[in-house]
C-alpha cells in the first residue's frame, strides 16, 4: 500500500468516524425529546424484581409501579377497593366476596382472573408477617368465577381489608398465575404486572438505572387519587430510577436540574435545597416515616432479667438520639410509646416508664436489678448512616452508667447475619443491636412485628410474652375504633413492661423535587408512589 493510499484511507476513516459520531449525537436526542421522563433518585437501587420475596422498601416501590393491589389505603389509612370493583362482607364477618373490576389486564395482554389472584394472595401471605396472620385465620380462598372469589375465614378477623391494602413491605401485589405459583422463597425473574407502568427489563442496569414505561392499556379507577387508592393515572411516559450512592452527588444533581425527584435527601442538605431555585422540599404523609429502636437479646444475661432491661430506660434520652441523627426539631418528635405517635392508635400506655430518664440513678438501678458487670456485646453497624450515630449515642449513655461493654464494630450486612444467632454472646451471639423501622408499620399492632413477643418464632432478640401476642391477636378481631384503641393501649403497656424494644424517637424523612418541572406528588408515609407525578 502506497503512502498516498494510506493517507486516503485515514482520511476516509476519519470522515466516517466524524459522521457516525455526529449521527449518534443527534439521533437519540430526537427520539427522547417527545417523551416526558421523570428522573428520580430513590433511597436504594432496584436489585430485586420480586416484591413478595423481600421486604426491601425499594422492592415495594417497584411493585407498586408494575403491579396492582386488591385494596389501597386512602389519606385516612382506610382501605378502599383498587383492583376490586365491588366487595361484600357477610353478616357473620366470615366471608369476604370480592369481584375484580373491568379492564384489568396484565402487561402481556391477557386478562387478570381469579386464577392469578388466589395464588398471589397465598404466595404473598407465605412471606409477609401480616399476610401470615391473615392466612392463619383463613379457612379457604375459592374462586366463584373468572372475576369473583371468596375469602372464607375461620374466625371473624377484622383486618382482612387493611392487610390486603397495607402500604408497608411486603406489599400485597397481585401477580400472574405463572409467577404466583413460584415458591415464595424463590425469586421470580419476570416483572409482568397489571399496574400503571411496565418494567423495561432490557434497559435495567442493576446498581445504576431501572426504567419503567407508561402502560397505555391501564384502565385507572374513576375516583381521584388519594394515597394508594383512587385512579392511578400515569403522569409521564417514562420513569427512570437512577441509583446514586453518594447523597451529596444526588443533592447537587437535583440543584443542577439533572434529576427531578430525590426521595431521601440527607437532612444536613435541606437548607441548601430549600435555598435552591426551582427546588422544593415536602414532608411526606401524616405520620413520621421512621423510628429508631434499641433491641435487647432476651435469651442471655444480663438482659434475660426484666429488671435489668427496664433499667435501660433510665439511660435513654430520646432528644440525644434525635438531635444526633436528625438535628432539626422540625423533622423529629420525642415519642414515649411503641405505637407511632401521631397515628390513630397513639396512646399513653406505659409512657411513664419510657419517660423515666435518670442518668444519675441508672448505675444504682442496674446494681439493684442484679447486674454484676457481665460484658454486654453490642453489634455496631459503623457503615450505616442512621444506625451508626444512634449506636454511638447509646454506647456513650451506657458507658456513663458504668456498664461493661464489648463493642463489635462491623458493617450492617454483618449485623444482619449475626443478630439471627441465638448462641450466647461469647459464642458468636449478641446482647444489643440498634435498628430503625417504619412509622406506618408502627401504627398497626399486627404489622408492627417488633412489638411482638412470640418467643422463638419472633424477631431477633426473641422477647417472650404470651400476653403480648394475645393482645395483638385480639386487636385484629376488634370491631370498633374504641375497642382497638383500648387494646392497643393495653398492648403498649405490656410490651413496655417487657421491654420488647427501647424506642429512640421518631422522625420524618422529607423529599426534595424540582417544583419548577414536576407536580402531582402524593405524600405517603413509608412508601413512595411515583405514577401520578406529571412533568411540564
Amino acid at each position, binding site marked *: 500500500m502506497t503512502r498516498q493510499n494510506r493517507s486516503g484511507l485515514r482520511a476516509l476513516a476519519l470522515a466516517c468516524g466524524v459522521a457516525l*459520531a455526529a449521527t449518534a449525537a443527534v439521533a437519540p436526542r430526537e427520539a427522547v425529546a417527545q417523551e416526558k421522563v421523570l428522573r428520580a433518585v430513590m433511597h436504594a437501587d432496584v436489585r430485586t424484581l420480586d416484591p413478595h420475596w423481600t421486604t426491601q422498601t425499594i422492592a415495594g416501590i417497584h411493585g407498586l409501579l408494575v403491579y396492582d393491589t386488591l385494596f389501597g389505603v386512602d389519606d385516612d389509612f382506610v382501605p378502599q377497593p383498587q383492583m376490586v370493583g365491588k366487595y361484600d362482607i357477610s353478616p357473620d364477618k366470615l366471608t369476604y366476596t370480592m369481584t375484580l373490576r373491568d379492564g384489568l389486564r396484565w402487561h402481556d395482554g391477557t386478562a387478570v382472573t381469579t386464577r392469578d389472584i388466589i395464588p398471589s394472595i397465598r404466595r404473598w401471605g407465605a412471606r409477609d408477617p401480616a399476610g401470615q396472620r391473615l392466612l392463619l385465620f383463613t379457612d379457604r380462598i375459592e374462586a366463584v368465577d373468572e372475576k369473583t372469589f371468596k375469602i372464607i375465614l375461620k374466625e371473624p378477623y377484622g383486618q382482612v381489608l387493611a392487610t390486603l391494602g397495607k402500604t408497608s413491605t411486603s406489599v400485597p401485589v397481585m401477580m400472574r398465575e405463572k409467577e404466583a405459583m413460584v415458591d415464595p422463597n424463590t425469586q421470580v425473574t419476570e416483572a409482568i404486572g397489571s399496574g400503571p407502568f411496565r418494567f423495561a427489563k432490557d434497559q435495567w442496569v*442493576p446498581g445504576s438505572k431501572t426504567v419503567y414505561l407508561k402502560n397505555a392499556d391501564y384502565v385507572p379507577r374513576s375516583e381521584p387519587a388519594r394515597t394508594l387508592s383512587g385512579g392511578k393515572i400515569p403522569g409521564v411516559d417514562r420513569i427512570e430510577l437512577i441509583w446514586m450512592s453518594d447523597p451529596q*452527588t444526588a443533592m*447537587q444533581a437535583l440543584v443542577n436540574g*439533572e434529576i427531578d425527584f430525590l426521595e431521601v435527601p440527607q437532612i444536613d442538605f435541606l437548607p441548601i435545597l430549600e435555598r435552591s431555585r426551582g427546588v422544593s422540599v415536602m414532608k411526606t404523609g401524616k405520620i413520621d416515616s421512621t423510628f429508631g429502636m434499641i433491641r435487647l437479646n432476651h435469651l442471655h444475661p444480663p438482659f434475660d432479667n426484666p429488671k435489668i432491661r427496664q433499667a435501660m430506660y433510665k439511660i435513654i434520652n430520646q432528644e440525644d438520639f434525635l438531635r444526633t441523627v436528625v438535628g432539626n426539631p422540625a423533622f423529629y418528635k420525642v415519642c414515649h410509646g411503641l405505637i407511632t405517635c401521631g397515628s390513630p392508635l397513639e396512646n399513653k400506655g406505659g409512657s411513664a416508664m419510657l419517660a423515666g430518664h435518670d442518668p444519675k440513678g441508672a448505675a444504682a438501678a442496674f446494681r439493684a436489678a442484679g447486674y454484676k458487670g457481665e460484658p454486654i456485646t453490642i453489634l455496631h453497624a459503623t457503615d450505616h448512616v442512621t444506625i451508626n450515630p444512634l449506636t454511638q449515642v447509646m454506647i456513650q449513655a451506657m458507658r456513663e452508667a458504668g456498664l461493661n461493654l464489648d463493642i463489635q464494630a462491623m458493617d450492617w450486612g454483618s449485623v444482619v447475619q449475626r443478630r439471627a444467632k441465638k448462641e450466647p454472646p461469647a459464642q458468636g451471639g449478641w446482647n444489643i443491636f440498634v435498628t430503625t423501622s417504619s412509622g406506618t408499620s408502627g401504627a398497626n399492632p399486627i404489622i408492627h*412485628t417488633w412489638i411482638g413477643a412470640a418467643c422463638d418464632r419472633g424477631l431477633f432478640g426473641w422477647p417472650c410474652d404470651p400476653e403480648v401476642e394475645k393482645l395483638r391477636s385480639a386487636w385484629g378481631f376488634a370491631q370498633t375504633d374504641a375497642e382497638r384503641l383500648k387494646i392497643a393501649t393495653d398492648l403498649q403497656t405490656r410490651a413496655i413492661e417487657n421491654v420488647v424494644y427501647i424506642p429512640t424517637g421518631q422522625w420524618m424523612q422529607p423529599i426534595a423535587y424540582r417544583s419548577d418541572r414536576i407536580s402531582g406528588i402524593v405524600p405517603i408515609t413509608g412508601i413512595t408512589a411515583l405514577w401520578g407525578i406529571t412533568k411540564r
Partner: protein
Amino acid sequence: MFAYVIGRLLATIPVMAVVAVFVFFLLRIAPGDPAAIIAGDDATTQDIENIRAKLGLDRPMLEQFALWCWRLMQGDLGISIFSNLPVTQLIAQRLEPTLALTISTLLVAVVLAVPMGVLAAWKARSLADRVVMGFAVMGFAVPVFLAGYILIYVFSIKLGWLPVQGYRPIAQGLWPFVEGLILPSIALGTTYCALIARITRASMLEVLSQDYIRTAESKGLATPRVLLLHALKNSAVPIVTVIGIGIALLISGVVITETVFNIPGLGRLTVDAVLKRDYPIVQGLILVFAAGKVLVNLMIDISYAFLDPRIRY
C-alpha cells in the same frame, strides 16, 4: 517473543486458579449473609434459613466450591443472588464506563504529566521545576473525592458548563459521552498525573547526565530534539511501567470517582456487591480484575522490548 507470550498466557492459569480458591473461601469466611439481607428486618430465623436453602448456601462449602468451579470452566460466572441476572451480563454492562474513565484519565494524566516531568528535569531546581513538583505534591495530597466535589461546585453548579454526574454511552452521542468524563478524568487524573510527572522527572534527570546527551548537545542538536528523541526515549521504561501499573490500578480502583460522579462502572459494582454479600458478583469481578492485571503486566513487559532494543525475550 511468540513463545514468551504463549508461556506467560499459560502461566495465568495457575494464577487464576489460586485467585479463585482464595476469593471463594475468603468470602465464605467473612461475616455476612445474603439471605438475611434479602429476608429483611421483619424476617424470622426460619425465614432466613428457608432463603439460604433456596440459594444453596446451606450446602457444604466444598460442594458449593466444586459447583462454582464446574460452571467457571464452562465460562459461567454464575447468577447474581439479588438481581438474578448473569454475572457476565452485569460485568459487561459496567465495563464500558470503567474503560472509558480509565482511558480518559490516563490520557489526561499522560498528556499533562510527561511534558511537565520533562520540563521539570530540563529546568531542574528552577522555578518551573518547583511549580511542577509543587503540583505533584498537591496532586498526591488532595483526595480524589475532595477534588471531585470542588470541580463539581465550580464547573457544574456555579458555571453550569458540565453535568454533575452520570455517564452517557458513546452510542448516545460524542459530546454527551465526553462531557460526562471531563470532570471525573481531571479529578482522578490529578493523582496519576502527579505520580507520572515525578517519575518522568527522576528518570529524565538520570538520563540527562549521561555522556551521549552531552554529545548530542555538543553536535548542536536543538534542545527539543535532544529532550524528546534522546532523553525521553531512553527514560521511557520506568515511565511506561508506572503508566502500566496505573492502568491496572485504575481499572479496579475507580470506586470513589465512580461514586462521586455517579458512573456505573465496575468499581461501584464491586462495592455494592460486597456490601450486599452478592457472592457470585464479587467472585466474578475479582477474577476479571486478576485477569486484567495479568494482561496489563504482560503488555508492559512486551512494550519493554520495543522501547529498549537491549531487552529480548
